């Protein structure tokens, strides 16, 4: 724990010293800092990508609506060509325009791969006691059967799911959570939900940090030395987190009140205008997708 504090402390100083250095150098440094943060679970990598996206300056409402339309088209038109176009177009937006590295994009896309494969496998194959399918694989007393049309169907569904996921990933990798909440506010989602979203997002990181500190201090006292101890320690940390949360919520409320909080969280939101090129791109995309659907 102590060591770690010193490390962090060093980093703080490094970072401070960095303020007057050229921008490029700083960018490298902040990346290094990110890995530092990441290794301690202080920030998730999707969150980090969103804040450093090159298209973060685009109007969030535009991004939200564009990706939602792309999502609806991808699912609604139910056409493998449209799915492929969606995947390619969203990959282009995220990687080329947004500046996410190909590897990071791919690994984010692959997060739900297990669910998708498990979910679609049963569409592609079937079990039978007799070899009645187009293709049959013998397994002792039963057969796994499948057919070309079944496999194509499975492939189409996988493409559709990936297309749908790619639209949402494009949104999350280019738009920080607060801006998405801002869009929802404009779309008249109830204030209570909006404020809860804002506060949960902010305090997730505070809580994660607190949890990490407690865990590290328990670890330094051999709190995770074996399975039984680990369980005991985890229970202790969990109940401690609860007590700390309760206490701190009072402190946070005091801090809010000291700045004239009157029951409504008011923040300034930046206005980011939509550029003609961006709108043009969106319209072009929709036209291409509809044309593809009509042609096939």
């Amino acid at each position, binding site marked *: 724990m102590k060591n770690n504090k010193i490390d962090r402390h060093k980093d703080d100083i490094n970072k*401070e010293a960095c303020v007057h250095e050229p921008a490029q150098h700083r960018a490298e440094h902040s990346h290094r800092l990110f890995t530092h943060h990441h290794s301690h679970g202080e920030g998730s990598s999707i969150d980090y990508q969103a804040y450093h996206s090159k298209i973060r300056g685009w109007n969030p409402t535009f991004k939200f609506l564009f990706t939602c339309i792309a999502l609806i088209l991808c699912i609604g038109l139910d056409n493998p060509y449209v799915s492929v176009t969606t995947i390619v177009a969203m990959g282009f937006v995220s990687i080329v325009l947004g500046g996410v590295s190909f590897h990071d994009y791919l690994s984010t896309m692959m997060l739900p791969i297990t669910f998708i494969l498990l979910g679609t496998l049963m569409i592609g194959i079937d079990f039978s006691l007799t070899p009645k399918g187009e293709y049959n694989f013998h397994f002792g007393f039963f057969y796994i059967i499948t057919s070309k049309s079944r496999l194509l169907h499975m492939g189409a569904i996988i493409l559709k799911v990936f297309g749908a996921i790619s639209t949402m990933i494009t949104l999350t990798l280019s738009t*920080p959570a607060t801006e998405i909440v801002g869009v929802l506010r404009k779309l008249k989602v109830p204030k209570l939900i909006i404020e809860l979203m804002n506060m949960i997002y902010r305090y997730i990181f505070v809580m994660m940090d607190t949890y990490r500190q407690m865990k590290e201090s328990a670890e330094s006292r051999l709190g995770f030395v074996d399975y039984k101890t680990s369980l005991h320690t985890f229970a202790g940390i969990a109940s401690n987190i609860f007590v700390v949360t309760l206490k701190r919520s009072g402190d946070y409320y005091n801090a809010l009140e*000291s700045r004239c909080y009157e029951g409504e969280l*008011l923040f*300034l939101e930046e206005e980011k205008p939509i550029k003609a090129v961006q709108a043009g791109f969106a319209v072009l995309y929709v036209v291409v997708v509809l044309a593809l659907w009509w042609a096939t």
Partner: protein
Amino acid sequence: METIIKIKNLTYDYNQRKHALRGINLNIYKGQKLAVIGSNGAGKSTFFLNINGVLKSDCGEIYYRDELITRRKLNQLRKNVGIVFQDADQQIIASTVMQEVSFGPMNLKLPREEVIQRVEQALAYMNISEYKDRPPHYLSGGEKKRVSIADIIAMKSEVIIFDEPTAGLDPYNTDMLEEVLVKLGHEGKTLLISTHDMNFVYRWADRAIVFCNGQIIADGTPLEVFRNEEVLKRASLKRPTLLDVYDMLIEKKKLCQSDVYPKTTEELYALL
């Protein structure tokens, strides 16, 4: 001198058994640089929350510019007295620096242009304009502290309270903080700071009050306070190193007794 806050017989308790504040009487004058000292749990933070209007006691009166603060007028106090909390994470509520700093001005129901202008000014003042769009969880401790100070600067309150501002800061950030304090002092702001750094109190403050068990046991210039052995003992305070050194030099006849007390090492050097 113009009285900005007047406190009469303020008593506050969190529960029936123990009083956090017991009969505080204090006048705070405009433009004063006030150091609030005392051990942990002496009532400093409770005192701050009371004069900021977050806590309201049933006992005692607080006047802001001769206006009695009642329960209905608490916001009057909150508007004019800003408080920078000890733990920046306790204060930061929004998810980007810009939104965070805008929170106070937005609550003051200022027009949008004014809010934008104030936010930009405050960020520039604290030298954090480039962090505008960053979320607080990607900032270091020192940077978070600056954000929490910008929060209050954007509200343009006349009185600013700093609750142990140097706690957990590295020397670089501590220096930065002191610069900001001096700058704010020059602008005529009334500043109240609680700290355990007696050297800082000695060098910066023009008035020091000592809290002990919820009471003010000393009130005067830092020099008066630090020369009062009984107060130092009761509140278990340490004298500033420079004052000790100065007294030793006089005792050993290296310096002749004068009314000039050096407040910095440079001043001492000039005397020698």
